[in-house]
C-alpha cells in the first residue's frame, strides 16, 4: 500500500515537474524560437531575393548608364546632320574646298524616305563635283565619313578632259536620321541615374 502511494507521489511530482518545465519552455522559449525562425526566414528570403547591393555592382551599373547616355548623345549628334541641310551643305563645301574639288551642284535634303521598321528617315544628298582623280577619291571618302550616318547610293565618274586628269563625278548618298526609341530619349534624362 505504502509502495503504491509513494509511487503515486513520485509520479505526481514527476508530472508536475515536467508540466512546469514544459510550460515554462512553452511560455518563455517557444515564442522566441518561433519569432526568431520567422525573422530569420524573412531575412534569408530578403537577402537571397535582393540584388546584392555591393559597391562594385553599383559602380558597374553607373558605368553602363554612362555608356548608354554617351552612345545616345553620339547618335543624336550624328542624327543632327541629316536634319540640318544647311549644316550639311556647309560641311560638304568645306570638305570640297579642303580637297580642291569644285562643287558644281549640291542638293542637300532633296528627297526623303522612311527606313524599314520605322528605323528612321534617310535624306538624299546629290553632289556633282569636278576635280583631280585623287582629290575626288579623298573627297568622296570624306563625304561618306562626315559626322553623321552617311550611306552611299551611287557614284558616276567620267573624265572631264583638260589637264591634270580632271574628272567629273556625281555622288548620291543618304544622310540617315535614326529614330530614337522612347526609352533612349528618356535615358538621356536623369531618370536612370542610380
Amino acid at each position, binding site marked *: 500500500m505504502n509502495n503504491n502511494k509513494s509511487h503515486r*507521489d513520485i509520479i505526481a511530482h514527476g508530472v508536475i*515537474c515536467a508540466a512546469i518545465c514544459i510550460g515554462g519552455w512553452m511560455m*518563455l522559449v517557444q515564442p*522566441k524560437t518561433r519569432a526568431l525562425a520567422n*525573422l530569420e526566414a524573412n531575412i534569408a528570403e530578403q537577402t537571397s531575393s535582393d540584388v546584392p*547591393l555591393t559597391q562594385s555592382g553599383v559602380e558597374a551599373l553607373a558605368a553602363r*548608364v554612362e555608356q548608354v547616355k554617351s552612345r545616345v548623345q553620339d547618335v543624336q549628334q550624328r542624327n543632327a546632320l541629316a536634319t540640318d541641310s544647311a549644316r550639311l551643305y556647309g560641311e560638304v563645301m568645306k570638305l570640297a574646298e579642303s580637297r580642291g574639288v569644285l562643287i558644281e551642284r549640291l542638293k542637300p535634303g532633296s528627297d526623303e524616305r522612311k527606313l524599314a521598321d520605322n528605323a528612321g528617315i534617310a535624306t538624299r544628298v546629290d553632289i556633282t563635283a569636278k576635280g583631280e582623280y585623287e582629290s575626288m577619291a579623298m573627297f568622296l571618302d570624306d563625304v561618306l565619313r562626315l559626322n553623321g550616318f552617311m550611306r552611299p547610293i551611287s557614284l*558616276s565618274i567620267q573624265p572631264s578632259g583638260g589637264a591634270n586628269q580632271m574628272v567629273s563625278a556625281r555622288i548620291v548618298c543618304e544622310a540617315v536620321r535614326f529614330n530614337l526609341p522612347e526609352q533612349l530619349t528618356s*535615358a538621356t534624362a536623369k531618370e536612370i541615374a542610380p
Partner: protein
Amino acid sequence: MGVHTRRVILEIVAGRVTIAVLEHGRIASAVRLPFAVEHDPNEWSRSLRKLSAELRTHVEQFKLQGCSTTVLYSSPTAVVDLHSTTVSSSGAAAESALLSCTDALPYSSLTAVTQAIVLGRDRNGERRQTHVLVAAERNDVAEAIVECIDESGLKFQAAVPMDALILRRLALQALHQSGELRGSLYVGEHSSFFIVGANGQVDFERRLSFDIHSMVNTLRRPINRAGVEQPIELSQFDATAIVHDYGIPDRDTVVHDPLKLTGTQIIPLLQPLLQRLVVELRQSLRFGVGEKQRDQVTIVLSGPGVRVPNLAETLSKEIGQPVTTDDSWNEFDFTEAVCPRGEMSLAVARGRTIAQLNLEPNSMAQARRTKRVQQWLWTGAAAALAIIAVDYLQYDARLNEAEEQAARLSISAGDIEALKATSTKLKSTVDALAKLESHITRETGNSTSFRAIMNELTHWTPQSVRLTSINFQLVESRMVGQVNGYVFNSKVTSEEAVLERYIDDLRESPLFQTVSLGNVQIGSMSGQDGRRFEAEVVAESAPWMLIQQQLTVVSGTTLATDGDDAP
C-alpha cells in the same frame, strides 16, 4: 541555542534509558532514567510506548522538541553479526552477508529491516576475507522505536543497535593491528565479544554470553546467609556498585557493609557466569587458533569490564594465559550518565556509520527514498528551469540581433528597390539601344569606300587600258559597278590577252566580290584602234575601319576621255 545545532542521542538498554544532548558535536548534558524492559519483543515494544510519555517530560524540560535523535539500543530482536567472506567485491560481500543474516534470523525476513556495512578486507593471509557488519531488526520493533521518538516530541534520525557500534570498533581495531596474534576480549555492559587477529587479519569473532549487566542481574538474585532465614535481595544500584567496586572479590572481602555481605555469599552467584565465560574463551582459542599459536595469543581485556576488579586476573588464572587490560578504559565510570569511555560515546562521532547501519522501518526508508526522489525531481526541474531561463536569454539576444539585422535590411530595401528599378529601366534602355544599333548596322554598318575602289582600279589598270567611265549603284544592299573603257594592243601582248589579264587582276582584288566582262567590241579612241569593253563589278561591303586598312596611296588616275591620247 537553535534546534538544528543540537542533537540527541538516546540510549535504550536493559535497565536504563540515557538522554544525551549534543551541542556542536559534544555531549553537553545527559540524563539517565530507569527502564524496565521485558525479553519478549512485543512487551519490549509496549515498554517503549510507555517510555514515550516519560521522555516527553524530559524533552519539554530541556526544550528538545524537534531535535534530531539517534537511538542506540539493545533489543531482544536486534541481530548483529560480523560476516566474513572470501568475496573481494564490496557489493557482493555485503549482499552475501545480508543473505546469510536473513537466513539465520529467528523471524521472517519479510518483516525484517537489515543493513550491512563493509568494514574491510584482510591485509594478509592465504585466504583473505572481506568482513561485513550486518545488523537486523524486526520491522515492528523498529516502528515502535520511531513511534516512541516521535511521540516524545523528538525527531527520529536513526536507530542502531549498540552492539553494532561495539563490534564495528573491535573489528576495525583487529583489522588495523599489526604484529603478533592477539585476542581482543571486550566485556561490555550488555554484550561482550572476543576477536582474534594478527597482522591485519581477523581470524575469528565470537559473541560471548557474559556482560556486566548479567553480573548485576545475578547479584540481584536472592542471597542466603548463614543463620538468617530471610534471603536478601540487592537493589540494582547496590548490585552494580558491588560489581564495579569489588568485581570478583576474595571470600573474606566485605562487599556490602550494611548487609555484611562478603565474597563468600556472592562468588557462588558469579561462579556460573565466569565458568561459562572461561569455557567460551577456551573453546574459541581451541577451535579458532592453531595449537602451535594458541600459547602465543595475548588476550587484551577492554570495555567497561576493565573496571570490574579481578576479572582479568581471574580469567588469566582460569585460561592459563596472560590477560592484560586496556588501561584507556580505566576512565570508565558507571555512575556517570555519559563518560568519555562509555559505550554511548561511540555514537557521538560516528554519524556516517550510524547512517549506514540505520535500522529505520521499511515505511520510513521508503518515505525517505520517495522524498529523495522527489528532491531529485525538483532539483532536476529547477535545473531545467535554469536552462530554460538561459535558453530564453540566449534566444532573446539572438532575436534582438535578428531584429536589428532586419531593420538594417529594411533601411537598405529602399536603396535596393531603387537600384532594381534603375536596373530594370537600364535593361529596357539597353535593349532599345541594341535595337537601334542593329538598325544602324543594317543601314550604315557595311559600306563601300569609293576611294578604295577608285584606288584599286587605278592600281590594276595597265597602260594599255583606258577607262572611260566608272559608275556604281546601290542595288539591294550591294554596290554594283560598271566600268567602261578601251583596251589597246601593247608591244608584247595582244588586246585580248591584256583585257583577260586585266579582268583576272580585278578578280584577284579583295575589294570586289565578282568581276565579269560584258560587251567587247571594236572601237577607236582618239584615233587609235582598239577594243571597247564593259565590265561589271560588285564591290565588297566592309566596315569603314577595314576599308581604311586596304587603302593605298592613289598614285594617279587611269580615267581617260575619248579625246585623250592613247598610252
